[in-house]
């Protein structure tokens, strides 16, 4: 099987297993419900950071697409880390708002950069 696909599946299965294990630990009374949420959300943030980290590694033949992958990778990796950190350390309300804002900002940066690249490419081809 493709190595990339294995790591993608591992993340998916890992988060489900982590969620089930945390829920079980809560049922047994080892941790609180809030901690279960924080553990799963932190893992989700780390997953976003991991996929952002790998993004520039995916070889794309077009030079502009490669630039977009690099910027997208940086913005998603940083967004994911901020998301994970907020879910570990910040109050729940701040984690929800701040974490979501970080991920949305990361997506907007990527989209904005792609659009700027596209307009630059159009200007070049018009010359």
């Amino acid at each position: 099987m493709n190595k990339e696909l294995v790591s993608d599946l591992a993340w998916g299965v890992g988060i489900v297993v982590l969620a089930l294990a945390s829920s079980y630990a809560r049922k047994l009374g080892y941790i609180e419900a809030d901690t279960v949420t924080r553990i799963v959300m932190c893992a989700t943030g780390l997953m976003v950071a991991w996929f952002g980290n790998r993004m520039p590694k995916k070889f794309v033949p077009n030079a502009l697409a490669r630039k977009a992958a690099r910027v997208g990778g940086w913005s998603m990796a940083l967004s994911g880390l901020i998301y994970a950190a907020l879910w570990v350390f910040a109050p729940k309300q701040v984690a929800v708002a701040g974490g979501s804002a970080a991920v949305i900002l990361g997506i907007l940066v990527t989209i904005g950069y792609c659009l700027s690249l596209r307009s630059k490419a159009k200007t070049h081809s018009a010359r």
Partner: protein
Amino acid sequence: MSQVFKALSDPTRRQVLQLLRKGPLTAGELSDHFDVSKPTMSAHFAVLKEADLVHAEKSGKSVIYHLKLSVLEEALLGFVHSFGVGAEKPKARKEKAR
């Protein structure tokens, strides 16, 4: 990961990666920036390829190198570069008159 550290430990290889940040370059264009023999440069390219930090693409008779760094590797390169870890910076060839 040890291959990545090995690749980044050499200043010539780090400079190759810095040059590739601006865009893809052929092996010849990259070699022109350094005062070392072609076989030495080929060995450097091989180490970078082995560490999966660059992607080599054949185009006719020349080989075009593309940067292929993950975010973590890019951050590591920036960190190592700013602290100048390893030997001193390789002698760069004077820019050719165009």
